[in-house]
Structures are given as C-alpha cells and as structure tokens.
C-alpha cells in the first residue's frame, strides 16, 4: 500500500479491458463473508474470475487486501461449492440429495408456503440470519414482504450478542451510532483538513487487525500508530496490539462494565471531564456522579483483576488525550452486562467530549440512509401480525423496535415447547447455526431437528444444511453479484465481475424470483434486479442516480457522514434543532427509557453467571474461565474451512493457555486437549499464550471439517471441536441483551485414546447429547 501508484494502470473507471482481461473496479462484501467492503479490481477472462487485486484508488483500503479477497479464486471455484438447487431424498442427516431446477425448488417452497398459510398461519415460518454481511435485507424481505411472517431472528445468537447491545446502547443514549474516527469517512482520508489524529485509541474487547468487525478495517489502527497514536488495549489475552500498547489492561472476561465504571469514577473525581460538553449537551450527569462512587478503582481491581494503578493510569491517559477514540468490539456484547458495559463505555466517550469530534467517536448513519439491513420490509407487517412475534413481548427493548429481531433465546424455547405455536418452517440464509452462532449448539441441534420443513441458502453443503434442510439453494458470491453497500460510508457498488457459477443465484435474484411467485402484487413492478436496486437507492430521499450510475461511480462518500459536531449543527433531529435524537434532546447519562422499561437507569456491573464469585463450588470442578471467539486470519467465523490455503495457516482448532498452567496439566504445545463443563466438551489443540492469566483459557469457534464425511453421525465433525458445546442459550442480561459466550468456565485435560472413544458429534447426533438438560 502507498499513495503513490501507477495512475495509468490503475484507472478510476468502473470497467476496462487490459490485454485479455476484463477489469471490473468495484467492492467486495459477501460472500465469502467479512464485515468490510474493500475496493477491488476483478480480472476476468471469458466470464471467469482469474485474479483479484486491491484497488489503490479505493480510499477505504487503498490497495490493501486480506487473505479472503487475495485467495478469492480458491473460494469461487472450490470443488465443494454448491452448484444447483437440491432436495433431500434420504432422511435428514443422511446427506442424500437430488439435483432439481430452480423452478422445481420454487414450486416446493410455494406449495409449502400455501400449506402453512392455510393450516398454521404464516407466522409459523421463521428465518435465521447470520452476522452483518450482504445477506441482511434479502432474508428480511423474503420473510416479511414475501412470506408475511414477523419472525426474523439472529441464527441462535444468544442475547443478540453481536453489535446489537452496543448499537442499542448508542441509540438509547444519543439516538445514533458512533464509530472511531481513523479518517475513513472522508475521501481524502488523513488529508481532510478538518480531521485530527486520535492521540489515543482504546482498543476495547476486540483484536481488530484480525476481526475487522462492524465495517472497521483493523489495519486503520496501524495507520494511526504510524502517525503516533498511542494505544490502551483491554483484552484478557496478549494480542500484538496489546504488546505494542502503552497500557494493556488484562481484564477478567465479563467484567467490562465494572472497568468502565471505574474509569468514569477516576475521570469524574479527578475532574478530567469535558465540562463544556457535560453542561451543555447532557442529561443526568449528577446521577452518574453518584453511581460511579460505587466503583472506586481498588474495588474494581478486585472485580476485573486489573491492578488499581493501571486503571487510574488508563483513565488519565484517555481523558487527557484530545481527541481520543474507543474502538470497541464483540467482547463487550458477549457478557451478561453487555448493555450495561456498552452504556458505560458510551458514557466515557461523552464525558471526555469525544462524541462527533475529529479523531474521536463520530456519529455515523448508513451512507445516504440507504441501508435498512435486518429491519427491511417491517412496514409490510400489520400491527396484528407484529403481536404474533415470538418472545418479543418479554423483552421491552425488542418490543420497542430497537433490534429488528425476535429474541433468539425465545425462538429456541418456542422450537422446544411448541409455544406460543409450533414453527413449521425455518428459512436459513447465510447462516450455519450449529457450527458457529448458536450457543449450546447440541441443544439447538435437537430443537431444529423438530421443525418439519427447512430451506438453506448457502455456498457449501454445511453441517446445518445436512442436519436440517429439505431444500438447499446455491448462493452467488460477491464477485458474481449486482448489489450495493451502504454500511457505513461510502456508498459502494458491488458489480458483477464474473459470470454466475453453475446454477447459483444471487440473494437479490432469489428475492425477486420468490417475490414474483408469491407476492406479484408487490414484486411484479420490477422487471430486473437493477429495477429493484434503483428503487432501494432512490426511495425515501435517497440518491438521485440509479444503480448503473453507482456502478460507474464505484463509490460515493456522503458529506453528512464526514461532517463533525452534527449535534451542534442541527443535523441529527428531524426538527432541525441542535441536540440529539433522544427524549430529552441531550446525551443521556441516565436513560429515562430504561426507567420506562423497568431497568436500572444507570450502568452497573453484573457478575458472570458462572465464575469464581458466583459459583465458587463449581469452580472446584471447572477451575478455568473460558473465553471464546477470537478471530482467525483469513477465516470468517465458520467459513473458509474448505480452502487449502486457509487450512495451511489454520490446520486445526486451537485453544490458548498459559504455558505454566499447561505444564501443570501435563499438556505440551500441539497436544489435543478436552475443554469440558457441565454442558458438554470439545477438543482443540494446545497453543501457549504467555500473556494469558493462569486461570483463563481461550477456545476458537466456528470449526467444522469439510474434509470429513457429511452424513451423520460424522456430520463434518461439527461438534468435535465445537466450543459451543460449552456455551449457553437462554442465559442473558436483564435487558435480554448479552450472553456469556466469553465468560463461561471449564476444565482442561489431555485427549487420550481411552477418553476419546465416542466423538462428540456421535454423542450429539446419536446419543441425544451430553445429557446436561436431563440433569
């Protein structure tokens, strides 16, 4: 990467011919997955993608790429890729399929839809989606606008614990979402005269270099470091960023809310806060001042296992830096106190006057407001039908529409009990629950088996498809799609750079095909995908140009997103007045809405449900705190396991452990170890992490083995190394947000021939699981 490159070779056109190659300049999002939308040059020959190069003219990534795009050919033309629609001909789990045409597939879906509509009601169709990729609005439209069901859910992500707690806390406190400002919102990047470098970045609960979460390219942190930005890193494990940080706070997993309260305590009591912002733009500061007195650094040192001096030092360093940004991540969401931690961390940004200032945490909306994501098509659901949403009325924040999902924990109960009504059909689009997202995966496996009819839209034959699907539909990859991205900015084209592989269809095409069949009244107005994309770009005050014009532009930065101090300029509220989109118009340290819903109005610490201070007896048997979900270079969640190049880097699932602890347990690096708790066990390979606390271990998620037999009981070995054999469902914070994926407990012992007779996958698929529910 560099700003200097060959301008004749790297054009700013959208398409050109280069020798025998057709070059398409666009962005890539999904599939395969990630949260970013990097600019690429797709080189194809006769409709076949031959190579991918980073686009140096794309200011988002400036020519850089990660393994996923560099290795795209291996994914697109992978021998295991689904080629055509298939229907199940054996029993579920036998992995026996018959090739059918799309028309036959749509006939099956339409007939099933009509049968369910006539006999059960369309609400008994539920959809599962995965994390934030370009398969968000499409399943939402299929579910709501085509099937008419209100039941869309995160694919068994307990407590909606991926970005929903952080976004919801942002929305409640200031009416908008904030991100850390590494200059990415402006086309000139660091040369934008209004931008300032963050003096300090607090990297909280993520390793962005690997995870690239929430549309944030992790290596922007390195860009900032090279400009002189200092880091405070909050992470239980020693990451490369933690090693380079001025301060690394080695936090006990699941105690982030307490840490945030102690930081607030120091900043308030040492008078390091931004008086101007607090006096003019906030509500409820006095209540916060009172509350943080319950969290002095010495007390919080005991809760978080971080030395008191380090807490104080970090608070001073963050508060004195002008500007400073918090780059937060998934670990904040994956704990009991997710909403509370998210609220307290947002308070830190506000208290220090870093909201919407250059180099701070800036308010962002999706470019030109062009993305409704999971919330799409909710307008098609009647009030009467909304009342039928599963579990929603047990969670006031879900009921109020802050999260466009039905609570996944409640959906699981519904599958298990048939209450309030049995689910007749599951639609899975871009999600592989038992391999990845679902906590307590064996329990979810048993529950999903009960659903009579299931459709899976995916790229490969996944364990979830084999176990549950009646119908499997092959999805197109990003490089084969016409689509666009508006999360966050710029608005980016996703233009087809290769012909569709075999009989695959894009998510957009599936929407339109099904829409025309089942709801022609809503979808016959669109002749082509382009018609539909034009409308999405233009409706409700969008852009003035159409999809083809966006393809020509490649990307378009929205000036609103790079305007600073929007709350002073009256750019946030519909009435045009200065202030925030909250009931008080202010930033709310105390949240009146929380009070209305019956929650504590102020942030507070909640202990993990299992741990040294809540279940000391259990800790005798399961002495380690288990944190899960650290990301892998090049593999996105459960994806990419088919690719030889990725598996060369990641041959096996790895668990991290302090070398001294490992030695005491008789474990060497490279040994296979069992991780086990009351709910189940899985095996991963031992890797030493010298920075980990002796009482904390870390396990990888998303592992299945495409190289193994697909049929049950092997099922691609999906439960053998599945860290979600140990996590929970139905255990979440008081607000229904946040689940302890990153703060459970376990014991560790060596895998031997004697204790490895029956594989975990056989135990789950043939023996009914590990027996936890029966205890």
């Amino acid at each position, binding site marked *: 990467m560099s700003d200097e490159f060959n301008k004749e070779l790297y054009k700013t056109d959208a398409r050109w011919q280069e020798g025998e190659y057709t070059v398409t300049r666009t962005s890539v999002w999904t599939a395969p997955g990630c949260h970013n939308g990097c600019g690429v040059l797709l080189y194809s020959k006769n409709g076949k993608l031959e190579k991918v190069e980073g686009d140096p003219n794309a200011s988002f990534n400036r020519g850089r790429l990660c393994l996923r795009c560099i290795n795209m050919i291996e994914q697109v033309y992978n021998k295991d890729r689904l080629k055509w629609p298939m229907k199940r001909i054996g029993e579920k789990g036998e992995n026996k399929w018959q090739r059918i045409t799309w028309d036959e597939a749509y006939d099956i879906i339409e007939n099933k839809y009509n049968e369910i509509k006539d006999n059960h009601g369309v609400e008994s169709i539920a959809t599962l989606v995965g994390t934030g990729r370009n398969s968000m609005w499409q399943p939402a439209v299929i579910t709501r606008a085509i099937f008419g069901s209100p039941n869309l859910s995160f694919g068994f992500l307990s407590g909606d614990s991926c970005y929903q707690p952080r976004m919801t806390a942002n929305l409640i406190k200031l009416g908008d979402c904030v991100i850390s400002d590494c200059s990415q919102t402006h086309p000139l990047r660091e040369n934008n005269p209004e931008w300032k470098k963050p003096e300090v970045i607090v990297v909280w609960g993520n390793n962005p270099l690997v995870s690239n979460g929430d549309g944030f390219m992790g290596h922007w942190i390195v860009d900032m470091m090279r400009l002189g930005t200092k880091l405070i890193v909050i992470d239980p494990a*020693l990451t490369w960023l933690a090693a380079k940080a001025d301060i690394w706070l080695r936090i006990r997993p699941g105690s982030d809310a307490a840490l945030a309260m102690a930081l607030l305590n120091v900043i308030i009591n040492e008078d390091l806060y931004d008086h101007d912002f607090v006096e003019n733009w906030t509500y409820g500061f006095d209540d916060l001042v009172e509350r943080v007195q319950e969290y002095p650094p010495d007390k919080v040192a005991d809760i978080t296992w971080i030395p008191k001096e380090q807490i104080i030092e970090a608070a001073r360093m963050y508060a004195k830096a002008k500007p400073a940004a918090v780059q937060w991540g998934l670990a904040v969401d994956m704990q009991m106190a997710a909403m509370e931690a998210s609220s307290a961390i947002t308070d830190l940004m506000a208290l220090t006057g870093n909201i919407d200032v250059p180099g701070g945490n800036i308010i962002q909306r999706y470019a030109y407001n062009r993305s409704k994501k999971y919330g799409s098509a909710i307008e098609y659901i009647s009030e009467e039908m909304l009342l039928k949403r599963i579990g929603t009325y047990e969670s006031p924040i879900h009921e109020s529409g802050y999260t466009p999902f039905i609570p996944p924990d409640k959906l699981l109960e519904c599958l298990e009990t048939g209450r309030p009504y049995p689910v007749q059909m599951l639609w899975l689009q871009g999600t592989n629950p038992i391999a990845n997202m679902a906590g307590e995966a064996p329990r979810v496996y048993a529950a999903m088996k009960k659903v009579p009819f299931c459709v899976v839209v995916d790229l490969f034959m996944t364990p979830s498809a084999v176990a549950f699907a009646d119908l499997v539909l092959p999805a197109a990859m990003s490089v084969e799609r016409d689509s666009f991205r508006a999360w966050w900015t710029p608005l980016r084209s996703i233009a087809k750079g290769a012909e569709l592989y075999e009989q695959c269809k894009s998510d957009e095409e599936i929407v339109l095909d099904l829409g025309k069949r089942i709801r022609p009244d809503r979808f016959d107005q669109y002749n082509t995908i382009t018609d539909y994309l034009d409308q999405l770009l233009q409706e409700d005050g969008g852009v003035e140009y159409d999809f083809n014009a966006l393809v020509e532009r490649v990307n378009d930065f929205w000036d609103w997103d790079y305007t600073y101090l929007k709350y002073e300029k009256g750019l946030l509220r519909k009435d045009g007045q200065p202030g925030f989109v909250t009931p008080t118009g202010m930033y709310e340290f105390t949240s009146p809405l929380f009070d209305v819903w019956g929650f504590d109005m102020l942030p507070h610490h909640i202990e993990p449900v299992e741990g040294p201070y809540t279940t000391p007896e259990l800790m005798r048997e399961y002495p380690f705190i288990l944190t899960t979900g650290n990301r892998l270079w090049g593999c996105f969640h459960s994806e990419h396991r088919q690719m030889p190049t990725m598996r060369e880097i990641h041959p096996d699932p790895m668990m991290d452990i302090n070398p001294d602890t490992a030695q005491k347990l008789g474990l060497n690096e490279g040994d296979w170890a069992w991780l086990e708790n009351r709910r189940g066990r899985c095996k991963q390979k031992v890797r030493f992490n010298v920075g980990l606390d002796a009482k904390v271990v870390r396990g990888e998620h998303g592992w299945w083995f495409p190289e193994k037999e697909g049929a049950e009981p092997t099922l691609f070995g999906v439960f053998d190394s599945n860290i979600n054999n140990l996590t929970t469902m139905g255990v979440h914070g008081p607000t229904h947000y946040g689940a302890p994926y990153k703060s459970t407990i376990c014991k560790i012992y060596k895998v031997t021939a004697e204790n490895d007779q029956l594989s975990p996958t056989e135990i789950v698929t043939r023996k009914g699981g590990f027996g936890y529910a029966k205890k």
Partner: protein
Amino acid sequence: MPKSEEAVQMGLLIDYEFCTNCHTCEVACKKELGLKPGEYGIKVLEDGPRRNPDGKWEWNYVPVPTSLCDLCEKRVAEGRKPTCVHHCQSGIMYYGPVEELAKKMTGKPNMVLYSK
C-alpha cells in the same frame, strides 16, 4: 555517473515495527507465483512474545523473502509493484533500488532491507 537500468540492484525494504503477521504477503505471493501448500516466496517469521527487563513486551514479525522471490518481475514489467508491497495491510513494504531504500531507512529504527 548514473548507472544503467540493468546494473541497478533492486530490493525490498520492510518496516517490521508494524508487521502484524496478517499473512497477506505470503498468500499474495503464493497466488502470484502459483505456489503449492508448503511453498513460499516470502514467509513471516516470529520473535516473541516475551517480556523485556523494563516490563515491556517484545513481539516482532519479520517477513523474509525466499529464493523463490523474483521481486515480481512480471508485475514490475507491467508497471505494478510487487504483490506483497501492493497488498501489505500495514503498508510497510517498499520496492526500489537498494541505494534509495537504504536512504529511506536512515533514521527509522526496526527496518530491514533485502537485496535480490
């Protein structure tokens, strides 16, 4: 006297202070040279992590070009940068005449210069 183009020795300068071990150079190179699993034109080596006497962590990654590296002859002839330089996620790799690169590294610690 300016040297003729053929005589100029080219190389790679790497600011390893900011190498994150993202594997991008390794895989970009594999794709460019059509290498099989186990074969590398550039490989990232690790030193650390360990604590220094002052309590600070030492953790370095250094990409090392192998004998298979041809400094992307074909790409360079087309007017491109070597693929590792182009795609490096930290933007810490530079391609050029070694004499110029040597000047560039003056005063900046933690850089290595590879000659071909």
